[in-house]
């Protein structure tokens, strides 16, 4: 599709659809229906996360023993759990927890990782060796094990990291954005962020190694720019795109990580609705006795969100690099003429 053919100005009037962005988007959407589905899932996550209070029919912590363990009905589309809490509202609110943890973790991890990655790649030699050996050591831990270890250490009631976050950062105390103990969630997010930062540092460093060989870096240095200025003004803008992509790759991973550690019982603490935590404990025991809805729907939401991110990522990759798509070139059977 030769979109970039130079069209004489007067001809442009005759075929307005050519450059219309909306039409192009619709065309892309028709070619990638799964990508659209992914976009919908991710959009729904953000929508639920932002407007959780507005769209959820009940409060996520409305205990109502008279209506405990009710099967899905019109009043409670996803049913109610053992305390009579509305599962739909908890699932919607779980989106906010997931999103909060995911975004904080990714922002923190990406920032720290980029910082060390740029420094490591730019200075090279001794600095690089030290940072990269540290990265090696951290990457030697299997991811979930690393996360469990980090959370065990910083999640402790009186751990130094927790105290630091509580006292030295503008951390809202108690309820914030409808989350009962915001600090708990923040600490978990930082823990996941630490794991994210290590991967980021490695990838960013690789990119910086290539960028710093460019002539414009040499030119900047010749003009007397300081190291800090070169890194800030010349290297960082060139890795920024990569960093954004990394962030979007790590977001579903961070969401999944939060669910996994909450499921294992070391993540988001009890009354807060977390998709991972809702799959375990009493809900799980109930599920074995036939009350499947309190675990089914939060898990479904989690799966759909991760599926959405994966489908969206696949679609983006297809669009940006059509060579990786199935239909072209590959295929079995003796090469036939024209195919």
């Amino acid at each position: 599709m030769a979109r970039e053919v130079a069209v004489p100005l007067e001809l442009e009037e005759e075929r307005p659809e050519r450059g219309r962005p909306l039409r192009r988007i619709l065309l892309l959407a028709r070619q990638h229906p799964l990508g659209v589905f992914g976009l919908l899932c991710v959009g729904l996550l953000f929508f639920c996360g932002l407007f959780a209070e507005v769209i959820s029919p009940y409060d996520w912590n409305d205990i109502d023993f008279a209506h405990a363990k009710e099967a899905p009905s019109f009043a409670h589309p996803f049913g109610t759990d053992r305390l009579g809490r509305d599962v739909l509202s908890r699932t919607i609110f779980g989106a906010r927890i997931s999103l909060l943890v995911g975004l904080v973790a990714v922002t923190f991890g990406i920032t720290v990782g980029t910082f060390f990655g740029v420094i490591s790649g730019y200075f090279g030699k001794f600095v690089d060796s030290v940072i990269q050996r540290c990265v090696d050591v951290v990457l030697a831990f299997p991811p979930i094990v690393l996360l469990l270890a980090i959370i065990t250490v910083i999640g402790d009631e009186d751990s130094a990291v927790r105290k630091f976050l509580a006292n030295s950062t503008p951390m809202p105390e108690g309820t914030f954005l409808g989350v009962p103990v915001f600090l708990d969630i923040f600490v978990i997010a930082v823990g996941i962020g630490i794991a994210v930062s290590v991967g980021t540092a490695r990838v960013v460093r690789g990119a910086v190694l290539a960028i710093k060989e460019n002539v414009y870096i040499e030119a900047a240095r010749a003009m007397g720019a300081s190291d800090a200025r070169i890194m800030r003004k010349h290297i960082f803008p060139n890795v920024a795109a990569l960093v954004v992509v990394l962030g979007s790759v790590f977001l579903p991973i961070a969401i999944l990580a939060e669910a996994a550690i909450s499921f294992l019982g070391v993540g988001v603490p009890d009354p807060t609705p977390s998709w991972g935590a809702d799959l375990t404990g009493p809900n799980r025991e109930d599920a074995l006795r036939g009350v499947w809805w309190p675990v089914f729907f939060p898990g479904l939401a989690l799966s759909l969100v991760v599926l959405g991110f994966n489908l969206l990522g696949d679609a983006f990759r297809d669009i940006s690099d059509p060579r990786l798509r199935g239909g072209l070139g590959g295929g079995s059977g003796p090469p036939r003429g024209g195919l």
Partner: protein
Amino acid sequence: MRDYIIRRLLLIAPIMLGVSFLTYATFNIIPGDAAVLTCQFNCTPETLHDIRHELGLDQPFYEQYGNWLGGIFQGDFGKSFFGGLPVTTELGRRLPVTGELMIMTMFFALILGIPPGVLSAIRPGTVVDWIARFTSVLWLSVPSFYLGILIIAFGVIWFGWTPPQFGVRGTVSFFHDPWLNLQTFFFPAIVLAVGISAVIMRLTRSSMLEVMRNDYIRTAWSKGLRERTVVWRHALKNALIPVTTIIGLQIGALIGGAVIIESVFKLNGVGVYVLEAILRRDLLVVQSMVLIFAATYVLANLLVDLGYAWLDPRIRYG
């Protein structure tokens, strides 16, 4: 090749030393006194002092680290703060469970990953391809613990079936009662395997597509070879080389997955042991087990790298 092996082995040593130090340091900045945790009810200053001495907590930091590391070299991973059972005793009982789970998982992951990947690559754009790709994305997205819970819950609701439970006894060995043993491990292994198989399938597919474009495949076709020969003999061998690398990386996911899936299916393996230790703040156990996990991961990746060099003679490590 031999030099390469030796060099890789030498590189492992500093990394493992770093890993052990990081593990030790991490778990020892946690505030809280292990002695207080251990003595529980009859805490007098004297008993506390005794326990501290017994656990070696009255020694300086570096000496404690040295003792711990020295013990590990002699096969002594320390004792639990609670109940005082040595880590090695627990390992002896639980490693077979986790080991069998991981081996079965890898087996299923390869079975469910490679054939669909190949089929999807040799028939791109067909229904087979579409189904294989969609299921792989699906399996990639459904968390293993959710899938496990669903299987357990709907197994009970629809079929009245529960996975066999063994409590603290661990599990029944394969040689003792193969049928019961397979019943125990089939679903945990499948649940853990589908996620890994999705990764393997996707990589097999793209690597196969790449290989099928090569000239030597064209030559094989023009010799008039059957499709089966071209695909399985000529293409797959080369397509599988990158797949071995990803299998190495997936061992990390496998270890983490074992922690999760053991707790879902209540298997008494190493993963559950660590988790219980974390929840009880039994730090010495956590510390030793984290080190063991990391060592396994590093060694597995080393083996895969060596296997890679052996499988692909084109790769020469200077």
